[in-house]
Structures are given as structure tokens and as C-alpha cells.
């Protein structure tokens, strides 16, 4: 499904490694089953030839890794950024979280990434191979004699179904053609929830958040969560907790986390992608984004470096908290 190939990326990386522009490459490492891709640092072109992969399962957003990797690495790091990753990249630069001089960013086009759980929902467990042919995945399993053909559009990750932009907002070099900011339906689900009664909304979230196992994957994968020490990890904070002891703590964690990234969240969707319990965490972030757009004017975090996030800004004519609900009637 992806238009750019593994070979093209390896060629580009080899060239940049050979001419000394970069000292290493942050890329996707192949796994056991074709869909289990691990972010990996490659030091040589040879390493890339054996271990590098680029497929429809390379959803991981590398931007956050740059915070740690740029501190450890001598020379520049080559990083491949999909359009949505570039927003996180800019946002981290806005917050001075890594040294731009130590990164060589190559923008790569993205046709949307697949969600393996959606594929498994169609063809079941026991996948032996997945190959992309045009806009179709050909899946062979241990239990079906014939390969199963699945339309790629049917198994797109949620965030890609509602892709907000195919445009790269940051790069040193661009491979392929740049796209446009899209008119996505990403707020539709938020609007649907808003239209419910408070009781229905409460029941919805109570059910979703009750599955939380507090693994912190959402936080640890989030490019906006780069605090050295999270308040929820700090025993002196009074709210540190390693488990969701009851429904209050589930809500506390997710409200505070969503609030802390409000105005800075680029809506990259990593939180929902990594959640082992499939909690639609992106809806909390999108609610804040939608509100901020409606209250204070359209704002896309990460669209440009140095922009002032809405919650650390103000105008004297802002609406009053009490007016928030009156507006909605």
C-alpha cells in the first residue's frame, strides 16, 4: 500500500551515511511476523539491509525518541518522518526538547497505516504472512487453505481513517510528493458523544476507562509527554499510583494526562494505538482540540515551530467558563 519502498529508504540512508551527513538512522526494525515492527537505530547500511523494514505496519512515531537519542548520539541522526510525525517533531522543537542541529529529518509520504487487530478481526489468529499488493492485503493463515484478500481501506488504523494531514510541516529533505492538510472527520465521534445525555456519556466513559490497567503505555508513547518525572511516578506528589485502584483514579489519571497535553497534543494518535485495552484515548485529546478551536480559534499544535499554545495564552475578550455551556444551549 505504501508508495515509497523499503529499498528507496535504504538507498537514501546509505547515501547519507556514506557522505557523513548522518551517523546513524532511526528506523523500523523487522520482527517475527511481518507486522511486529520495532523502532531501531541502524549504524550502517549493511545493518539496514538485514534488519530494516518499511511496510504498512510502521505506525510508530519516532519524534519522541529524538529527545533521548540526540543526547546520546555523536553526529546527526537520520529520522524518517511521516506527515503526522512532523507535527510532533515541531511541537517538541517548540518546547526545546531536542537539538534540531543533531537531526536530519527526511519526510516520507504515508498512505495510512494498517491496524493488525482489525486484520485479525477479519481473518482470525494464526497469521503466517501478510503482503500488500496495491490496495489489498493478501493474508495467509495456518487455518485457511486459500489466502485471504482484505481491502486496505477496511483495516486502516483509526487515526489514519481520520488522517488530518498528508502535508509535512518539517523536514530537511522530502522524498516523494508532499500532500495537503485534509478535511478530516476526526471530530465526528467527539460530536456524537457531546450530543448524548450526561448520563450516557458517563456510562460510556465509565465503561471505557474501567478497562485501564494503568500500564502507562499511552503516556510513555505520547510525544507530548516528555516530563523527566511524571507527577504520577513521583511518590511525593500524593497522587502517585501504579494501579487504577478504583474508578476515581482511572478518571484522575486520564483527565490530568489529557489536560496536561491540551493545546500541545498534535493528535498523532499514538495513545490509542498503543493501548493494550483499546481505550479510545484520542477522543479525550480531540475533545480538548475541538473545544480550543471553538473557543479560541483554530489551532493545530506543531503546525509551526514557536507558536504559543492556546492554554498558555489569552485575550481579554475570552469567553467565561460559565459561558461554555450556554453557547451549546
Amino acid at each position, binding site marked *: 500500500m505504501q508508495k515509497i519502498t523499503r529499498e528507496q529508504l535504504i538507498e537514501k540512508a546509505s547515501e547519507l551515511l556514506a557522505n557523513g551527513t548522518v551517523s546513524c538512522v532511526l528506523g523500523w526494525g523487522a520482527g517475527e511476523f511481518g507486522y511486529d515492527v520495532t523502532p531501531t537505530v541502524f549504524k550502517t547500511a549493511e545493518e539496514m539491509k538485514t534488519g530494516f523494514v518499511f511496510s504498512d505496519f510502521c505506525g510508530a512515531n519516532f519524534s519522541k525518541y529524538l529527545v533521548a537519542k540526540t543526547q546520546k548520539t555523536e553526529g546527526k541522526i537520520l529520522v524518517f518522518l511521516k506527515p503526522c510525525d512532523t507535527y510532533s517533531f515541531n511541537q517538541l522543537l517548540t518546547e526545546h526538547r531536542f537539538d534540531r542541529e543533531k537531526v536530519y529529518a527526511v519526510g516520507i509520504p504515508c498512505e495510512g497505516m494498517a491496524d493488525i487487530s482489525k486484520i485479525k478481526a477479519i481473518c482470525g489468529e494464526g497469521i503466517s504472512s501478510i503482503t500488500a499488493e496495491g490496495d489489498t492485503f493478501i493474508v495467509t493463515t495456518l487455518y485457511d487453505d486459500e489466502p485471504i484478500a482484505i481491502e486496505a481501506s477496511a483495516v486502516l488504523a483509526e487515526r489514519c481513517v481520520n488522517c488530518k494531514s498528508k502535508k509535512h510541516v518539517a523536514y530537511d529533505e522530502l522524498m516523494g510528493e508532499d500532500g495537503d492538510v485534509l478535511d478530516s472527520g476526526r471530530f465526528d465521534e467527539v460530536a456524537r458523544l457531546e450530543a448524548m445525555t450526561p448520563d450516557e456519556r458517563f456510562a460510556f466513559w465509565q465503561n471505557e476507562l474501567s478497562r485501564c490497567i494503568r500500564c502507562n503505555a499511552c503516556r510513555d508513547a505520547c510525544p507530548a509527554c516528555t516530563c523527566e518525572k511524571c507527577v504520577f511516578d513521583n511518590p511525593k506528589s500524593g497522587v502517585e499510583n501504579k494501579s487504577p485502584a478504583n474508578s*476515581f483514579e482511572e*478518571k484522575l489519571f486520564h483527565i490530568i494526562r489529557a489536560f496536561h497535553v491540551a493545546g500541545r497534543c498534535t493528535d498523532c494518535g499514538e495513545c490509542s494505538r498503543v493501548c493494550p485495552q483499546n481505550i479510545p484515548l484520542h477522543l479525550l485529546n480531540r475533545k*480538548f482540540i475541538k473545544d480550543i478551536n471553538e*473557543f479560541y480559534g483554530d489551532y493545530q499544535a506543531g503546525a509551526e515551530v514557536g507558536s504559543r499554545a*492556546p*492554554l*498558555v495564552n489569552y*485575550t481579554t475578550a475570552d469567553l*467565561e467558563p460559565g459561558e*461554555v455551556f450556554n453557547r451549546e444551549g
Partner: protein
Amino acid sequence: MQVNEYKPLIVAFCCNWCSYAGADLAGNNRLAYPADVKIIRVPCSCRVNPMFILRAFQRGADGVIICGCHPGDCHYTSGNYYTRRRMAALFSMLDFLGIERERTRVEWVSAAEGAKFAATMNDFAQKVAALGENKRLEDLRCKK
């Protein structure tokens, strides 16, 4: 016979420069407001972190109100403007999670507005009392 009327526990975060003085004035003028309003003095209304509000609910508050200087009058020039944006976003989020919107409020009370302070507290306590106990943001472990 004693009637056990339900009285909501209200936590009021008041800024040091205006609203806390406003509460003082209400007291000096012998203006009545519910005794179950517990005032916590903060340097500025923007000192109130969303965590404070949720923790108040956790420890048994039925309503939380934040009082600060009128916009434009902040002792620190702009603190309450930030409060206004943050709380607008936070309250909207609480509502999104199905938590009663009447349980949280922001009100601007100056040092001269003792009467407004008392009236605000009376009104807020009444609204919260109508909702009953806070069930949606309660922590059962903290119930006596």
C-alpha cells in the same frame, strides 16, 4: 427531633488579593453563607491546578468553585486570564465525561464585593445541593 438535611461540602479556592478579601468583607458585614463552604486561599486563581479540583472531589467535596479578581484586575496582571482559559477547557472536559456541569464554577469576586461573595456561595451551594452527593467523581475509600 433533629432533621438531617443534606448539606453539600463546597471547596472554594479564593485568590489572596481579591476574593479572599471579599470573603473577609462578607464576614465583617455579617453576611450569611453556608458553613460548609471551605475556603482555601491561593496566591492567585491561576495557582489552581486541575489536580486540586479533582483531589477536592476525591476527598469528599460535592462542588468546587474558584474565585479570583475580575479580569483585568489581577494582582499579577494576567493570572486570571489563564485561569479563565484553563477552567473553560477543564469544565468542558468534565462535562464530556458526564460529570455534572453545575458542580464546578468560576466566579470573579473583588475585595469590595462581600455581598457578591455571600450571594455566590449561597447560590452555588443551593445548586450543588439540588444535585445531591457527588457520586461520579467520588473515591469510596475516602468516605467515612
